């Protein structure tokens, strides 16, 4: 099965990180990527929600608003796409993502159309 591992964390806290902390976090993600190379199919980090734009089409009109769809304490900051046999494996991988220690990871199965 394919799963999206959605990484949620507190952006405000992340922006307060020192250069040293940033480097440590990057190293953590690099190690995670190397350890799970066999399962990872893709993934990206996202720019902060301050750069987000939300778009809706209502009665033929495009409505554009600044910011994310909903203000939340933790924001979506990135994701991985992984292939696993089952949820237990996906959970085991998700638990290794550095953000799991201070934020949280939502594990969502990909809807397969076949």
């Amino acid at each position, binding site marked *: 099965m394919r799963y999206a591992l959605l990484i949620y964390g507190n952006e405000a806290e992340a922006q307060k990180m020192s250069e040293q902390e940033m480097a440590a976090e990057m190293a953590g993600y690099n190690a995670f990527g190397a350890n799970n190379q066999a399962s990872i199919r893709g993934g990206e980090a996202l720019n902060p929600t301050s750069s987000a734009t939300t778009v809706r089409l209502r009665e033929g009109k495009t409505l554009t608003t600044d910011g994310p769809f909903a203000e939340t304490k933790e924001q979506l900051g990135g994701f991985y796409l992984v292939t696993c046999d089952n*949820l237990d494996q996906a959970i085991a991988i998700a638990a290794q993502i550095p953000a799991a220690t201070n934020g949280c990871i939502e594990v969502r199965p990909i809807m397969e159309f*076949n």
Partner: protein
Amino acid sequence: MTSVATQLETAYRQDYGRILASLIGAVRDFGLAEDALQEAMVAALESWPVSGIPANPAGWLAAVARRRAIDRLRRNAILTRKQSELQALAEIERQTFSVPGAEEPDEIPDERLKLLFTCCHPALALDARVALTLRTLGGLRTEEIASAFLIPLPTMAQRLVRAQRKILDAGIPYAEPPVNQLAERLDGVFAVLYLIFNEGYTATAGDTLMRRDLCEEAIRLTRILADLCERDPAIGPQAEALGLLALMRLHHARRHARVDATGELVLLEAQDRSLWDSGEIVDGTQTLDRALALRQVGPYQVQAAIAALHDQARRPEDTDWGEIALLYGRLACMAPSPIIELNHAVAVAMARGPEVGLALLEQLSVAPALERYHHYHAARADLLRRAGRTTEARASYEQALSLCQNDIERRFLRRRLAELTGHEKTPTRM
């Protein structure tokens, strides 16, 4: 006809979980497996009165259910040409037809542990885990589960459907957990079984204090869990599984004495101990001994040891409160919780006097968490009553009453309150 119905009911009660577990193992679809087994039951009702009851009713049901599942899969596969269903079909046919004498297999493979771990998977909501466990392993009907938990039938039905969907969609594996997750996952299974027992032991609301069916079901499932762990080389005997089983049995032994003829709650100290089930006490104590011999102490075993001490006292005054207080102290270190601290304080009060217990209660750093818990106020009221502090006792009983939801417990508290008001001068019975 009656004997067919009886045989079928027996096979259903005894083997439902086992047949279903092996079916789910083959088709990986809870709904399909349940429907197929249901169809097999109907087929049995039609064919057994005519052709006689088969030598192995459970094997017969399993074989017919498997064939029905194949029929359904084949129909779906032809309709949708779904790769996954075709694969499942190939697998189930391989399993069915590679077994010699598959018409009535003697041995249904026992996959109940897988089923138990799947139903109690932490990715499912706790209430869904409870419902799913009762439904699949217990073989309880949806309406039985709904009424046991005082929940409308459609809500319970929806809860079950959602849980089954989630298992399928989220890819919750039908497997025993890997060794490094075993302890954690076993704890999850214990929690579900304990919750079922507790729900049966004391209803959280309404007018039935005990729903013994749920208690007995919890005991049955816990025994199955303990046995299956023991037989599984990858898991081995689990002291806490036995501890939980002992705990349930040692409490269940008092079931006839906990409520009087009019349905009123009888406290431990006032219970007619001749009504206690001595066979259940012996069995429970033996189970506890087996658990302790494995030398992996855990909270369920300590709680069972406390229950055993109560059960062994012929009269309330024979209770070894000193030992019980020690065990609660130990439990509080293993599994810290305000409720255990409360029980510890009560045991200390029984061993060393109500004022000592009251002092402990005051000290409880966790007291704010207990403010909304009626047992806290009832216990405090009881200690105050024993200490002769009637006015304060009355206030505490009233606070307990304002928080308590169970009608039988409420009546008990009102009785205590009335005793205090009516006989302020006469000493209350101990």
